[in-house]
Each structure stands twice: as C-alpha cells, then as structure tokens.
C-alpha cells in the first residue's frame, strides 16, 4: 500500500554526550562515553553509583522562573523541541498551527517532581506542596509543554511504552501525517529520573551495571563482561513533515521515515520473548511498511542495552529478520540508556548515519560474546554507504518498535 511520504526536517537533542545534536553526534563518532560517577550523598548507599548525566544543565538554557514550573523531563523536552523547530526552519514559515501536532513521550514521567514534593509533604505539610506539582508530574506534561511552546493545535499526544516510548512516539507522529491529521509533527521522547528510587528499583531487578569503579566502561553491549544497563537522562526530538509540504517550502530533508513496525509480545511483563518473536515481527512489519527489500537495510542502531540476556536475543531476531549483511551499532555504549528518550536519540543517530555515511561505534566491545555473530562497528566508527537503516526499541511490557529510515 502506498503511503503519504513522511520526511525528517529537523532534529534536536540534549544528552549526556552534548547539549545539542551536533555535539552529541560528534561525541558519538569519537567514541566518547557520557557515563560518570554519581557524586551526591544519596548515591553512597546505592549498589549503583554511576549514570549518564546531561552534558548541559537545563538551567543554562531556560530561565529560573520557567524552570520552577517544569519537571526536569519537561524542561529538556522543551529544549530539544525548540532546537528541532529552529533546525527545521519552521519558526516564521507561516505554518497553520491547526496542522501542527506533537507526539512526545516519557517512560517514567515526572518522577523527580513526585519524589521531591513527597519529601516536602513529609517535612513541611500539605500547604507547602507546590501548586505546580500536578502539571509537573503528569505523564502528558512534556508533550503538553512542547505543544504550548510551539502553539501546536492538531493534537498533543504522550505515548508511554517504557524504553520503546521515543520510537513509538515517532511512529504515532508518522501515523498522524499519513492519516491526514497534521502536516508537521514534533515527535520524540524525554527522560530524567536520576534519583535513588528509580535507581534502586532497576537495581533490585538486577538490570543495572554495578561497574562503579569504571563508569566509562560500564555500558558495554555484546561484550562478554557486560553486567547491565547504565541509566541515562536526556531528550531527543524530530520534526516529521509531509514530504510535499517540506518540498513546497524548500526545507532541508535529513531522511525519509519510510516505515514502522509495532508489536507486543503478550508473553511477560519484563522478559523479552526468548526467541525474539515480537521483535522479528516488528522488524518485518517495518520493512514491509517501508516497501523496501531487507537487503537495502545496511545499518542497524540496535536496542542493545548491555544486559546479558537482551543483547543476544536481539541478535537472534536481527539475524532471522534481516540476515547477516547490516553493520550494527549500540550507541547506548556511549549515551547510556535514556529509557523513554532512547528511541528518539537513536533515531537521530540512525538518520545522521545515513546522511553522513558513517556508523558510530559501539565502545567497550573488547571481548565480543560468543553469541554475537553479526558485524558490529566495534570501538571505531565505520564509513559505509547507507541507503536504508533500522532502529530498534523494546520496552518493559513487551513493546517492540522498529523504524526504517531511508536516504532523502
């Protein structure tokens, strides 16, 4: 079935690797790690004392009064969205606000606000709880703030599918344009939950790396010595646009968002299906939706979070769904795991890999696991012509999202 063509015309991000897309991409190509030691006192009692923290604090970019009413996840969503908006050149384009939509999700939501205000409630009583608490912690907060900032009136949506959120939000944005509900959709994900409670929760699941003495080496997808993911914070936002709309205004086009596949496992609340059945179906659907041959997919930005089981299950799924020709990478080795923002940041990396003809490295891949029988750009960026590329995202709850981007 022929679909309305959707292209990417703007990118924005604030990540552990840089305060914008250019610095983040540069750091990725240079194989830099964004992971560092957690120094606050509260970290001392935790089994995990490392994280990938933002390279640039929101306070450097937004004024103090505005920040008072924003959860950290909302502040960085606004920062990334404003960058993407400026990058797309839409500021003075005369775009009808009723044709502008937003699809920005978060995996966990305004947990920092919830926890901080609970501290105030316990210490000082209910009257001292901020009147901004609810709009700061509500899960639709980041999308709503971005919509307010850009005056979007075609609908503001907040997807939540754990670590698949960013990718699924992009899928929804694409669907809005295909369905004719919007000409432009600002889409992506945001996450900021570096706090003892979420860390303790993930840590109790035994999902996180405890390589506290070597933070930069802790995130090591597919390496034999991997021992879990590293929590990261950040936001990534794409401007999706109907292709003829972008062409009519002479916009720059980074890549086409050619197709998407979304499936659910119906298997377990946190474990992926051991044979990766849901992932295989998502990848296959995305390729069919993009109407390309699987042989065209030369590069995959894998979900690969550095957990012992998940990394290899994805390899099995990729081998079965795509074959053995694509060059893989796991940029989480550098950025850490941005949870609800991961799929958005990795979509940005996938798009720039296509544009620049270079696959960013998977760092810390010193001793590849025996089950890794596909080609990975290990430890060094690799130049490669990439007509089409895939970005995978999977989330607790059995969410599988695969996105196919192709050269503009």
């Amino acid at each position, binding site marked *: 079935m022929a679909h309305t063509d959707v292209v990417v015309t703007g990118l924005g991000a604030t990540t552990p690797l840089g305060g914008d897309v250019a610095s983040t991409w540069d750091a990725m190509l240079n194989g830099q790690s964004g992971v560092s030691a957690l120094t606050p006192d509260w970290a001392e009692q935790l089994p995990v004392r490392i994280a990938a923290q933002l390279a640039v604090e929101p306070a450097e970019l937004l*004024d*103090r*009064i505005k920040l*008072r*009413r924003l959860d950290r996840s909302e502040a960085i969503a606004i920062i990334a969205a404003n960058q993407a908006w400026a990058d797309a050149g839409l500021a003075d384009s005369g775009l009808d606000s009723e044709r502008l939509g937003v699809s920005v999700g978060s995996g966990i939501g305004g947990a920092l606000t919830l926890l901080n205000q609970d501290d105030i409630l316990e210490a000082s009583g209910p*009257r*001292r709880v*901020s*009147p*901004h608490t609810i709009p700061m912690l509500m899960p639709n907060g980041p999308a709503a703030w971005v919509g307010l900032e850009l005056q979007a009136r075609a609908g503001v949506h907040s997807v939540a599918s754990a670590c698949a959120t960013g990718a699924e939000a992009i899928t929804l944005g694409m669907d809005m344009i295909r369905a004719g509900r919007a000409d432009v959709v600002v889409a992506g994900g945001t996450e900021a939950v570096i706090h003892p409670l979420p860390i303790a929760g993930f840590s109790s699941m035994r999902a996180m790396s405890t390589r506290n003495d070597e933070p930069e080496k802790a995130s090591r997808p597919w390496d034999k010595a991997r021992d879990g993911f590293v929590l990261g914070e950040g936001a990534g936002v794409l401007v999706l646009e109907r292709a003829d709309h972008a062409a009519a205004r002479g916009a720059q086009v980074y890549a086409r968002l050619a197709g998407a596949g979304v499936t659910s496992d119906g298997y377990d609340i946190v474990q992926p299906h051991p044979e990766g059945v849901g992932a295989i179906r998502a990848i296959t659907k995305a390729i069919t939706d993009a109407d390309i041959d699987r042989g065209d997919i030369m590069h995959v930005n894998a979900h690969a979070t550095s957990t012992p089981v998940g990394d290899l299950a994805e390899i099995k799924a990729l081998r079965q769904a795509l074959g053995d020709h694509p060059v893989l990478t796991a940029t989480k080795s550098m950025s850490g795991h941005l949870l609800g923002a991961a799929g958005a940041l990795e979509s940005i990396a996938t798009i720039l890999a296509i544009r620049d003809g270079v696959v960013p490295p998977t760092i810390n891949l010193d001793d590849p696991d025996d089950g890794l029988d596909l080609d990975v750009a290990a430890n060094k960026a690799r130049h490669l012509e990439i007509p089409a590329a895939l970005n995978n995202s999977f989330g607790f709850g059995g969410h599988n999202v695969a996105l196919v981007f192709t050269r503009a």
Partner: protein
Amino acid sequence: MTRDEITTGLAEILEEVAGVTPDDVAEGKSFTDDLDVDSLSMVEVVVAAEEKFGVKIPDNEVQNLKTVGDAVSYIEAQS
C-alpha cells in the same frame, strides 16, 4: 511593620516566585493584570507571604486581594 516594608517584602516574594522586577511592585498594581502573576503563582505568593509575615491568608480572602495595596492592607491588619 510599615506599609512600605510590607510592600518591599512582597516584592521580594514576587521576584522569587514569579520573576517580577521589584521596581514594578507598587500598591496600585494588580497582581494579574499588571504584574502577570497567574493563579498558580498567586498560590505560591500567598504561602510565602504567610510565612514571611506570620499571618494567615485563607483561600476565600485571596480573591479579594486584587492589588499589591489590597495585600498590604490585609497583612497590615493581621499582623
């Protein structure tokens, strides 16, 4: 405490909570129309003023405090 001292105290709160320039704060100014203080920020101003001036400002009184002067008068009468 004089009316001027209360006004100065309110100006400090308004700057902290809502980013209002202290020089703009005067008795005749309306919180919403002149100083751009929205309803949620007004709640913060009230709670901070209660603490600063050691008074109680019940919710049903807040709607009567349209201007800085109204607030100063209320605080002056209570303290």
